C-alpha cells in the first residue's frame, strides 16, 4: 500500500513509523460510523440548547428543521447523518441564544430618538 506524502512523494506504508500510524488512527474517530448512543447524546444536547432558546422566546425555524432532520435520519438508521444534523441544530440553537442575550441591550441602538 502507498500513500502520498506532504511533499507529493509516494510513501510506502511500511516506511511510515508505527507511532505515526497510531496517531493518525487515534485522531480520526469521525471516520468511524456513528452509533445510536452517539446520536442520542448529540440530539439531547441540541434539544437542551433549543429549550433554552425557547425560554428566551427566540427559537429559530432552522433549528427545528435540523432537529426534525436528525430524527428522521435516526429512524432510517442513518446515524452519521442524524449526528451531523443534531450538531447543526445545537450550533443553530446556541447562535439563537447568543442573539437573544446580545439583543437585551443591542436593540437600543436601532431605536428612533
Amino acid at each position, binding site marked *: 500500500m502507498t500513500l502520498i506524502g506532504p511533499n507529493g512523494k509516494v510513501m510506502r506504508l511500511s516506511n511510515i513509523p508505527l507511532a505515526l500510524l497510531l496517531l493518525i488512527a487515534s485522531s480520526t474517530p469521525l471516520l468511524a460510523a456513528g452509533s445510536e448512543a452517539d446520536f442520542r447524546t448529540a440530539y439531547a444536547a441540541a434539544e437542551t440548547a433549543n429549550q433554552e432558546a425557547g425560554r428566551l*422566546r427566540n427559537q*429559530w425555524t432552522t433549528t427545528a428543521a435540523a432537529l426534525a432532520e436528525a430524527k428522521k435520519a435516526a429512524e432510517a438508521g442513518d446515524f452519521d447523518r442524524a449526528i451531523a444534523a443534531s450538531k447543526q441544530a445545537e450550533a443553530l440553537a446556541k447562535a439563537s441564544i447568543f442573539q437573544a442575550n446580545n*439583543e437585551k441591550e443591542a*436593540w*437600543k441602538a436601532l431605536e428612533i430618538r
Partner: protein
Amino acid sequence: MRSAMHLVVSAAAAFAALAFSSLAPAAAADTPDPVADARAFRNYFTQKFPKVKLEDFVNGPYSMNEDMHRQWEEKEQFPPYEFALEAGQEMFSKPFKNGRSYADCFPNQGIGIRQNYPIFDEKEGKVVTLELALNRCREANGEAPLSYVKDDMAALTAYMAFTSRGKPFDIKIPSDPRALEAYQDGKRYFYTRRGQLNFSCASCHVQSPGERIRAEVLAPALGILNAMPIYRSEWSGMGTISRRFTTCNSQIRGVPLDPQADEYRDLEYYLSYVSNGLPISGPGARP
C-alpha cells in the same frame, strides 16, 4: 476665608452640575417617554419621505411609490376585502346562541371603536387587543373562540375597522406603571433582532420602507396597523394583525409565538400608540 468658602461652594456646584449632566441623560434614556417617542417616530418618517402626506402613511407600500399608488386607487374600485366586510357585518349582527351579541361586549355597541384598541386593562394588568376582546366576548357568551389567524376573525375586525374609517388612532397609556412597562416591552420587541436572518421589525419597516425585498415594497412602520386587517394577494385571502406578526417572524426564520402572546399584544400597543392621530383605513389591501 470668604474666598475659600466661595471656592468650595463653587467647586461643589461645579461637581454637582457635572454629576447631573452626566447622569441625567442616561437616566432619561432609560425612562420610557411615549410622547417623545411618538414625536420622534413621526418626525423620522416625515423627514425620510417629505413628499408623503402624513395621513397617507396608513396606505403602507402604496404611499411609497406613485405607480403602486395608482394601482391601489384602481384596486379600491372593486376592493378584494369586500367579501370579508360583508361576512363580518353578518357575523357581527348575528346573535349568539344565548341571544346576546358582540355589540353587548363593547362600548357604543362596538361601532366606531376600532381606533381605541388595543386598550390597557388595569384590572388584568395587560394589553387587550380587539382580536382578544372579540374572542373573550365569544367565550363569555358560551361560544368557541375563533382562530386568530383565519378568515372569521379577519372578517369581524374588517367590519369593526370599517365602522371606524377616518377616525384617528387614540391609544391611551393610563397612569399605571404596568401600562408603561407593556409599552416599553412592545418597543423592545419591535427593535429586537431575531430569527436566523437577524432582522428586527425595524430592520424592514424603519430602516428600509419603500425598498424592495424580493418583489415586495416594504411598508413604513408609521401607520402600519391602521389598515388592518388586510387582504393580501400573497395570501390569497384576509389576514389579521396576529397573522401579520406571526408571518413576519417565520419569514426571518424565527419560530412565531402563539397569536396574542404577551409580546405580540405589547408590540401592537406600542405600534398603535406611535401612530396616534393617523386615521384608521382598514380593512386594507396589500400586494
